[in-house]
């Protein structure tokens, strides 16, 4: 055990493994670019924006309807999950009696771990029939929004709860000393103090919703069209990749890789923003 010469080779070995793992990101990005190259070089990427339809076999690569569909789903899900998630967090931190709170937290953790394909299955067999009774065809933007809301709710609630718990005790004591009611303490003091933490959690949820494939693929109906109505079937960018990879070849395949690359860049941008906000919150 006194042999310290072993540290040098071990250190070198561990560092090479670390470098190897760090290179995975580079490998992923370079393979995406390599495979997408035929669809993006020499200005070919412009067809993604200007073509007015997605008929890859005929050389038409307009992906804007799918980008809009992905964005519409994500925005809709956030609009629902943000108020519900933040009020769940307020409930968890300030209102729930201790035993109720720990059961509630356990349930949120359990739901955060349920596979997305199961949410998709549930959405398709329970939610879609309900929507059909209201307005056909059921598989729709609305179904996708509702399923995504369920999926990101635990994330929003748990990160908001963490942010609220991290607010310094003096702030709460100060607010109480000023004679503010509990409601005013929460709305005027605690939420503003926890704002950056909550927003960074929301950004993570946005990234998850944008990148989600299975649940959206199963309930959204997958018709390539602009999301003009809540009840219209739409196709998300991720779902498109999953649907067409099986038979895509040539520039069609390249087009799918290009949309994957676009998706990755979007999600990385969001993750970067979230981490900047988080470090800002830690400093402030």
């Amino acid at each position, binding site marked *: 055990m006194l042999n310290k010469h072993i540290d040098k080779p071990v250190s070198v070995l561990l560092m090479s493994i670390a470098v190897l793992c760090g290179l995975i990101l580079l490998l992923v990005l370079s393979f995406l670019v390599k495979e997408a190259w035929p669809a993006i070089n020499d200005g070919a990427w412009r067809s993604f924006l200007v073509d007015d339809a997605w008929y890859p076999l005929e050389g038409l690569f307009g992906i804007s309807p799918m980008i809009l569909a992905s964005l519409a789903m994500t925005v809709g899900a956030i609009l629902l999950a943000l108020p519900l998630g933040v009020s769940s967090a307020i409930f968890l931190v300030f209102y729930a009696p201790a035993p109720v709170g720990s059961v509630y937290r356990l349930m949120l953790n359990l739901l955060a771990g349920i596979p997305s394909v199961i949410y998709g299955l549930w959405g398709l067999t329970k939610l879609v029939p309900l929507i059909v009774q209201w307005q056909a065809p059921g598989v729709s933007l609305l179904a996708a929004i509702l399923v995504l809301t369920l999926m990101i709710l635990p994330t929003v609630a748990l990160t908001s709860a963490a942010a609220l718990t991290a607010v310094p005790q003096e702030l709460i004591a100060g607010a109480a000393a000023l004679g503010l009611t509990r409601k005013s303490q929460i709305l005027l003091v605690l939420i503003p103090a926890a704002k950056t933490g909550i927003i960074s959690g929301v950004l993570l949820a946005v990234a998850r919703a944008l990148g989600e494939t299975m649940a959206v693929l199963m309930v959204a109906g997958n018709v390539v069209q602009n999301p003009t109505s809540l009840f219209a079937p739409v196709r998300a960018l991720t779902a498109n990749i*999953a649907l067409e990879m099986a038979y895509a070849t040539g520039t069609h395949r390249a087009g799918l890789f290009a949309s994957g690359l676009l998706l990755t860049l979007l999600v990385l941008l969001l993750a970067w923003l979230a981490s900047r906000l988080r470090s800002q919150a830690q400093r402030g």
Partner: protein
Amino acid sequence: MKERGFTLLIWASALLVAAMLLWVLSDVFIKGLSHLSWSFLMDEPSDSGRSGGIAPILISTLLILLVALFVSIPLGLAVAVWLSDFTEQRSEFANIIRLTLDALTGVPSIVYGLFGNAFFSIFLGLGFSIVSGGLTLACMILPVFIRTCESGLSAVNNDWRKGALALGLSRSATVWHILLPAAAPAIVTGLILGIGRATAETAALIFTSGYVDRMPESVMDSGRSLAVHIYDLSMNVTGGDDAAYASAFVLITLIILLNTFAQAGVNRWLKGRLVAL
């Protein structure tokens, strides 16, 4: 009065969330259990999965997971140890590695599917196989596993490191005999996150490990995972819903069981080590 309204609103939204979540869970449990039987676990699927069971699919799922864990556990622990104990805390180089790992965490699973298909299946010539799928999942779970283990190792009280140093232990021995056992809870958490993510994964597997629902003869065969099976049954097979729900129930149970095993296994391995010292 307004105060009471706010309290009511908070309770109402908490109840709404709980009700929706219980709705999903109860559906999966009730519909899943009603179709579940011993033969469902033990038989081969027939009639595109409408009848028969899921035996080959369970085996494929476990094999894919095994490949993923076999690769990611040793690599992940190595990187975590390097980041926490073999490099300066403020080293620029280590921070770049951390940054790329954090970026990898955010990459959507369908993109891992594209990458795995292009790299493992085609470029390395592994084809649609359990190995391709497992390696793709390994890339996916490595970042989270590393960062969780690293934070656990960094959280070990520094007195332990100083004590080991004073006793003349090499740094490698300190890590092996003291720090890893002490960081066991974080390693378990990392494992649970990884297992959960890998077992639940669908999008990354469709184009790497494939669709074939026969019993795999080796890890070079294509194998269908449980999650892919649920997707296929509910989307492509009319009348497959009952089997899909039963598979969903099995999938959730499997994740919970594997988490328990991970907990027990790590505790046992590391407890033995602490005593041996």
